[in-house]
């Protein structure tokens, strides 16, 4: 009797905490939605849009790499797939970007499943190296694909501002709301998955695959599911980015730097956590953009200095996020 009372009490408390978290997120998103009322500066608006985009991308990356523990440094491939699918469908076939986003996402999920079938036999660092190499192959292919504009990329045609074609030349506010919505969806998906069977399975696979298997978890299908969901939302982010810039080229949507920028917010904020990616993005992206504009030049070098410095600061001050990247724990438990 006592036990069942304490069980139902624990369940009620847990549900209360979960819905509080949801209410907090709802309030934050609603508050963020009013930002364009106060911020009119185009540059600041751009930084805010990029921050939310990388929060959404990192949230997607976190599903495969944070929760399921399969560290990918090749997510630029899915980002690029989304950007190119959306652009090609719109520019060559007149398909509205809304469909392009969905088709690009589905295509990326399929590619993730095909690559997962090959790569999920690899463990730890070997998997990560494979993701880097595959994304580089994708980049090289796009560079040499004339139909997709090769190295020149794809320019979206000029047109009137419209929600149908996601083209807004003057006021960036619609992009802000779109990307805020995208972030909210990735957060919500993570929130739901965290408390689902897949969410528990992924974390079990990350922590200790043999133990997970002994508890009925099928490792391979768990990884495949995480990869597909992760790739889908990454590609949607890529499609949005293409619409936002109205111009893409291979290096701006499929370079290694993008893979890094998707991983770093989660790593800095707390890998495998619900709030880590958005906190990390809120720190990393404004700093990156500010140094880029103040120091000037190409900015390529200063970016790396900033990332390196941030990682060192986080590693010293708040190492949990970074430590979970290291395989020391799994190595111990394997012996």
């Amino acid at each position, binding site marked *: 009797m006592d036990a069942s009372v304490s069980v139902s009490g624990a369940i009620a408390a847990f549900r209360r905490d979960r819905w509080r978290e949801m209410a907090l997120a709802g309030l934050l998103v609603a508050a963020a939605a009013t930002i364009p009322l106060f911020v009119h500066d185009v540059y600041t608006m751009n930084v805010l849009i990029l921050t939310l985009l990388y929060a959404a991308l990192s949230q997607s990356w976190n599903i495969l790499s944070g929760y399921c523990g399969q560290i990918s440094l090749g997510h630029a491939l899915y980002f690029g797939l989304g950007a190119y699918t959306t652009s090609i469908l719109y520019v060559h076939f007149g398909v509205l970007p809304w469909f392009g986003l969905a088709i690009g996402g589905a295509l990326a999920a399929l590619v993730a499943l095909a690559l997962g079938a090959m790569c999920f036999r690899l463990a730890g660092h070997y998997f990560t190296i494979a993701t880097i190499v595959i994304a580089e192959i994708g980049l090289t292919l796009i560079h040499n694909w004339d139909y997709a504009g090769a190295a020149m990329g794809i320019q979206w045609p000029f047109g009137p501002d419209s929600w149908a074609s996601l083209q807004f030349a003057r006021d960036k506010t619609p992009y802000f709301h779109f990307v805020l919505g995208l972030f909210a969806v990735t957060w919500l998906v993570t929130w739901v998955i965290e408390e689902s069977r897949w969410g528990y399975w992924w974390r079990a696979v990350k922590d200790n695959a043999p133990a997970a298997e002994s508890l*009925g978890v099928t490792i391979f299908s768990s990884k495949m599911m995480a990869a597909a969901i992760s790739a889908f939302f990454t590609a949607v982010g890529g499609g949005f980015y293409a619409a936002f810039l109205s111009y893409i080229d291979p290096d701006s949507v499929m370079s290694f730097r993008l893979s890094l920028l998707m991983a770093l917010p989660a790593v800095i904020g707390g890998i495998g956590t619900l709030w880590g990616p958005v906190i990390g993005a809120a720190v990393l992206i404004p700093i990156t953009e500010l140094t880029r504009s103040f120091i000037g030049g190409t900015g390529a070098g200063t970016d790396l200095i900033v990332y390196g410095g941030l990682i060192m600061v986080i590693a010293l001050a708040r190492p949990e996020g970074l430590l979970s990247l290291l395989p020391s724990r799994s190595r111990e438990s394997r012996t």
Partner: protein
Amino acid sequence: MTEAALLTCHDVTRVFDGLVANKDISIEIHQGEIVGLIGPNGAGKSTLFNLIAGSFPVTSGCIMFGGRDITGLPAAARCHAGIARTFQVPRSFDSMSVLENVIVGALVHYPRSRAARVKALEVLDYAGLSGRTAHPAGDLTPPERRRLEIARAIATEPRLLLLDEVLTGLTPSESREGVDLVRRIRESGITVVMVEHVMEVVMPLVDRAIVLNLGEVLAEGSPAEIVRDPAVIGAYLGTRNHAA
């Protein structure tokens, strides 16, 4: 015992790179028993466990469980079939709380996480860990980790539970609590096979003991018979006239 066995190993052999770890092992485990699998280090106890749990395949032979051939099933499918296990070196999910660890096990029969959470809380209470549910699994003491492994395995609602050295290295009082937990598990209807190499811990607990030596079944019988068996004494202590 005349009823059909719950688990049957028939001529099970496992070879690692030319080393024969298990050779033609044929054993039967019956519903409701506590069976001790004992033998000196390197006798092949853990290998046999891993073969039954499906951690790696047999080289030859077959394994039947509940009247069904499970020889070809992978570990996850064997868990769904009703075989649960613990690991000799505890393998907790250290980034997760104690409760979340057990939820993973409970999800086998309760796919909705809320029902799994209820089941996990009940199992943790049963295993004496209800005060630790919110702690990270990595913070547990070694005996608590063993309990967590058992709780996680029980949460899968197995018919057969394989315990790998869960009583080894405990203080006398921890060991008594462990023995008590194993008895309660059996009373709840779960058949238990336990590997131990410390004889005095298992002998009072088990109904039957199977002794392995050098990868083969050396002796099988009640604890009282086993401790008097000259072959078993020889395997543990060495035979008097065997010049080493």
